[in-house]
């Protein structure tokens, strides 16, 4: 099966994404040499997930005032978080799905099951959430958000991070 990348996109948006030119220095390659069954895996979602009892939501009010701006901050989501603690702030998708089951975007239960069955070594204690609508160039993501998350992943000795778009 070949995935149709534009199946759920409004037709008028298609050229914007199909013709976009993303400047990259070269292909990224990071060999994965550890057996998967011994590896620590984390996951990051761009669905704007946050913990409603202890974290601020992503700043939607500023985005409403400045439509080309998107909140570049991040949130850490613990692996065993209960669904009753989950909220989401994202103006470009219907967040009701993730508010009912965080696993649609951040598959913590699924990865815990893979851990229990020995497919992966361990699901990381902390996983991550960002809000995926960002200003052109993603300057803060590059200078601050990315390095901060990478430092925490290294501190927890995470071997691989699944980047999950929303």
């Amino acid at each position, binding site marked *: 099966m070949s*995935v149709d990348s534009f199946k759920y996109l409004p037709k008028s948006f298609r050229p914007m994404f199909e013709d976009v030119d993303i400047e990259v220095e070269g292909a990224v390659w990071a060999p994965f040499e550890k057996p998967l069954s011994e590896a620590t895996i984390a996951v990051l979602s761009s669905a704007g997930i946050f913990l409603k009892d202890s974290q601020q939501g992503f700043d939607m009010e500023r985005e409403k005032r400045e439509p080309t701006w998107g909140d570049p901050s991040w949130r850490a989501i613990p692996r065993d978080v209960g669904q009753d603690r989950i909220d989401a702030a994202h103006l470009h998708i219907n967040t009701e799905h993730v508010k009912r089951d965080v696993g649609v975007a951040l598959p913590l239960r699924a990865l815990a099951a893979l851990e229990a069955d020995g497919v992966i070594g361990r699901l990381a204690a902390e996983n991550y959430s960002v809000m995926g609508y960002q200003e052109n160039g993603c300057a803060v993501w590059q200078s601050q958000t990315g390095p901060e998350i990478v430092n925490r992943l290294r501190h927890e000795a995470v071997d691989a991070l699944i980047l999950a778009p929303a």
Partner: protein
Amino acid sequence: MMPDLASKTRVSRLLGVEFPFGQAFGMIDDLDMQREVAEAAVRLLEEAQEPESRRDLDIEWPIDTKTAYRAWQPPEISPIVAASLEQIRKARREAGPG
């Protein structure tokens, strides 16, 4: 969800799914589906032997496309789309009839 777009960033490993936005790992409360996607993602870590490896997952979204398309949309038009529409309308007004 949009692997053609993600591939432009030339990532090491890419798993494509043909799912509506906001639900990259599957349906609400469908742990089997979420697990299948998550497992395919982690298996790709071992399977991929070279940069820009892409695998498209053969799972059909179990809701008809029209319904799923409507279901992923935000309740209100996003600020950037609203601003763009306003710009288009303004340009049309300024251009005048004909």
